[in-house]
C-alpha cells in the first residue's frame, strides 16, 4: 500500500459509506417502506472507490442500473441520494429518477442507467468532448459481464478506438447478469478484457475485491489514457453479495456460495487486513471510520423520512428547458 494515511482513510471511509448505504437499503426495502427496482452494489465497493479516488469533478463517469456505489464514490451527496431513492422532491433528481437514474453532472456523474449497455456510447461522446477540450480529462464507463454482450458496448469500444477518445471501459465481472452465469453468457469465457483487446485497446486486469489492486491498476490505466494514447479497458473480477435486485430468491447460487464470498472476498475485510498488517491504520481507527459511515447513512435515512414529497403537478416539469 503506497497511499498516504489520509488517502487510505478517505478510501476506506468511502467504501464503508457504500456498504452502509446498501445494507441499510436492503433492510428498508424488505419492510416495503420504499418501492421500485433496487440493485445493490455490496461486494463491489473496491472497484468504484479504487477507480474514482483518481478522479476529480471534471473527469466523468457513466454508470449502470447498479449505480449507487459509483455515485457515492464520485462524490454524490449521501443524503441527496437517499432522498432520491425515497422519492422525495429534495432528492438529487427531485424524486423523478429514483435508484436507477441517479445523476449529478456537477460531480462529473453522468447518470446511472436503466438500459444495460446504454452507458458506453454516452461515455465515448463525453470522452470525445474532453479530447476536443484538450484538458487531459477522461471518462470512465462501468459495465457488467452482462452489459459486455450488448452490441452498443462493442460499437462504443470500436468508436473510442477510431476516435482516440480518452475513454476507459471498466468491466466489473461479478459473474452474474441477473440470474445467468457469465461462463454461459460471455462467449470469451472467463475473460471480457480480451474483447477490448481485440478492438485494439490496451487492457489491464485486476482483483476487484482488493482496493489496492484496483487503485494501482487504475493509476497505470489513467496515466496511459491521460497521456493521449486513446481509450483503454480494464476488467475487475468481483462479487455481488446480494441478489440481482432486492427480492431476488437467488436459487441459482451454489450452496454456501454467499457465505464463502463474504468470508474470503469481502473488500472491506481485505482492506483491513492489509492496512493493519502494514501498520498503517489500526482496528480501532478502522472501526471508528466504519461507525461514522453507518451514522451518516442513518442520518440520511432519517432526513429522507422527513423530507418533502413531490407534488402531482411536478410530473410535467423539466420535460423541456423553460425559455
Amino acid at each position: 500500500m503506497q497511499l498516504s494515511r489520509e488517502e487510505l482513510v478517505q478510501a476506506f471511509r468511502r467504501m464503508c459509506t457504500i456498504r452502509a448505504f446498501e445494507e441499510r437499503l436492503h433492510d428498508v426495502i424488505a419492510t416495503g417502506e420504499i418501492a421500485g427496482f433496487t440493485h445493490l452494489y455490496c461486494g463491489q465497493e473496491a472497484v468504484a472507490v479504487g477507480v474514482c479516488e483518481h478522479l476529480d469533478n471534471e473527469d466523468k463517469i457513466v454508470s449502470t442500473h447498479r449505480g449507487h456505489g459509483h455515485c457515492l464514490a464520485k462524490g454524490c451527496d449521501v443524503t441527496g441520494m437517499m432522498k432520491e431513492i425515497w422519492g422525495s422532491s429534495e432528492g438529487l433528481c427531485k424524486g423523478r429518477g429514483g435508484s436507477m437514474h441517479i445523476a449529478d453532472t456537477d460531480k462529473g456523474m453522468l447518470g446511472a442507467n436503466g438500459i444495460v449497455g446504454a452507458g458506453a456510447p454516452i461515455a465515448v461522446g463525453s470522452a470525445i468532448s474532453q479530447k476536443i477540450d484538450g484538458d487531459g480529462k477522461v471518462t470512465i464507463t462501468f459495465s457488467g459481464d452482462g452489459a459486455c454482450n450488448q452490441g452498443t458496448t462493442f460499437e462504443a469500444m470500436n468508436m473510442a478506438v477510431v476516435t482516440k477518445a480518452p475513454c476507459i471501459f471498466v468491466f466489473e465481472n461479478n459473474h452474474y447478469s441477473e440470474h445467468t452465469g457469465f461462463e454461459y453468457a460471455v462467449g470469451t469465457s472467463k475473460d471480457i478484457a480480451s474483447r477490448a483487446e481485440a478492438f485494439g485497446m490496451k487492457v489491464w486486469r485486476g482483483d476487484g475485491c482488493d482496493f489496492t489492486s484496483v487503485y494501482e491498476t487504475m493509476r497505470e490505466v489513467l496515466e496511459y489514457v491521460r497521456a493521449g494514447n486513446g481509450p483503454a479497458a480494464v476488467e475487475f473480477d468481483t462479487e455481488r453479495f446480494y441478489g440481482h435486485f432486492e427480492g431476488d430468491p437467488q436459487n441459482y447460487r451454489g450452496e454456501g456460495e454467499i457465505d464463502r464470498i463474504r468470508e474470503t472476498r469481502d473488500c472491506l475485510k481485505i482492506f483491513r487486513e492489509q492496512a493493519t498488517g502494514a501498520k498503517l491504520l489500526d482496528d480501532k481507527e478502522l472501526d471508528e471510520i466504519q461507525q461514522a459511515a453507518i451514522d451518516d447513512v442513518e442520518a440520511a435515512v432519517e432526513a429522507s423520512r422527513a423530507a418533502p414529497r413531490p407534488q402531482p403537478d411536478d410530473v410535467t416539469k423539466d420535460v423541456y428547458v423553460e425559455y
Partner: protein
Amino acid sequence: MAKMMYRDAVVSTLHEEMERDESIVVLGEDVVGGMGTEGGPEAIGGIWSTSTGLYDKFGADRVIDTPISESAIMGAAGGLALTGKRPVAELMFADFIGVSLDQIWNQIAKFRYMFGGKTRCPAVLRMAYGAGFNAAAQHSQSVHHILTGMPGLKVVMPSTPEDVRGLLRTALRSDDPVIFLEHKALYGVEGEVPDGDYTIPFAHARQVRSGEDVTIIATGLMVGLAEAAADTLAEDGIGCDVIDLRTTSPMDEEAILDSVEVTGRLVIVDEAPPRCNLATDISAIVAQKAFASLKAPIEMVTAPHSPIPFALELERAYLPSADDVEAAVRKTLSYR
C-alpha cells in the same frame, strides 16, 4: 372453466402450443434462468415466470437463454421466422424496443412486403409493458401506440387470462409478426379461463359492459379502470358501453363505430402519453366516420406528455385512474 393467473395463462399456452407445434422456439434473456450457475438451469424460468418449465420439457434447442443482446434476439427471431420456425422472442421490458427497434421495424415488419409477398415471418414478440411499479422512466412505458403505427406488425394487448390464452394461440397460429404486450400489473391477476382449445380472432373487440349513454374504449390495464368507473356510474343510472379492443392492429373499428352510433359520447382511455397515441387515433377515426353520431367532444384519458417519474406520488399522478375515467364520462355527459 378453471381459475388461472394472467402469467400462468401465458406459460400454459406456451407449453401446449410448443407440444402441438414443433417449430415453436422460445428465446430471450433469463427465459431459462440460471444457465451457467451452480444452482442450475431453470432456477428462475423467466423473471415474470412466464417461461417456467419450458426448458425442462423442450430442451436447449427450443428454449434458448440469450445473452443481454436485444438487437440480436429480435434479429434472430426474424431469421428463425424466415426459415420455417416460429420464434417466441421475449423482451423482458417493452422499453427495450429502444435497443432492438431496427430488427422489429425495418426487418421483421417489412420482410413480407419488401420481398414481394413471397415470405412469411411468423414471429411472436412478447414484451412486458406498463407503469405502476415505481420502475421509473426506462422500465414502465407503454409502447403499443408506437408499434401500432408500423405497417406489417400486429399488436395484441390482452387484459384477462382468458384473452391471453385465446389471443396467444391465435398469434402462434398466424403467419404474420405479432407484438404481444403483457401488462406487468396484470401478471398476478386471476380470472376464469374456458376449457378447450379456443382461439380469439384479432380485430374482435370484447364487450365488457353494456350501456347506452357513453362509450368507453380501453386496452390492457386500462380496461379495469373503465370497468370500475362504469360500475360507479351505474349507481347513478349512467350506462357505459365498455369496449376492450384486445388488438390495436388490426383494430375492430366496427365495434367502436357501432357503439358510438348508439351513445354519441366517447371516452378513450390510453396509458400512453397524449400525442399520436391510440386515443388520438381512435378519435380521428370516429370524427371521420361517425361525426354525425357525436353529441359531445370526444374525451381522452391518457398519461401526460412526460417521461414516467419514479416517486410514488408522481407515478400515481402520471397514470390514468378510475376517477379520471369517471370524471371524463361525467364531462362528456354534461356537454350542452
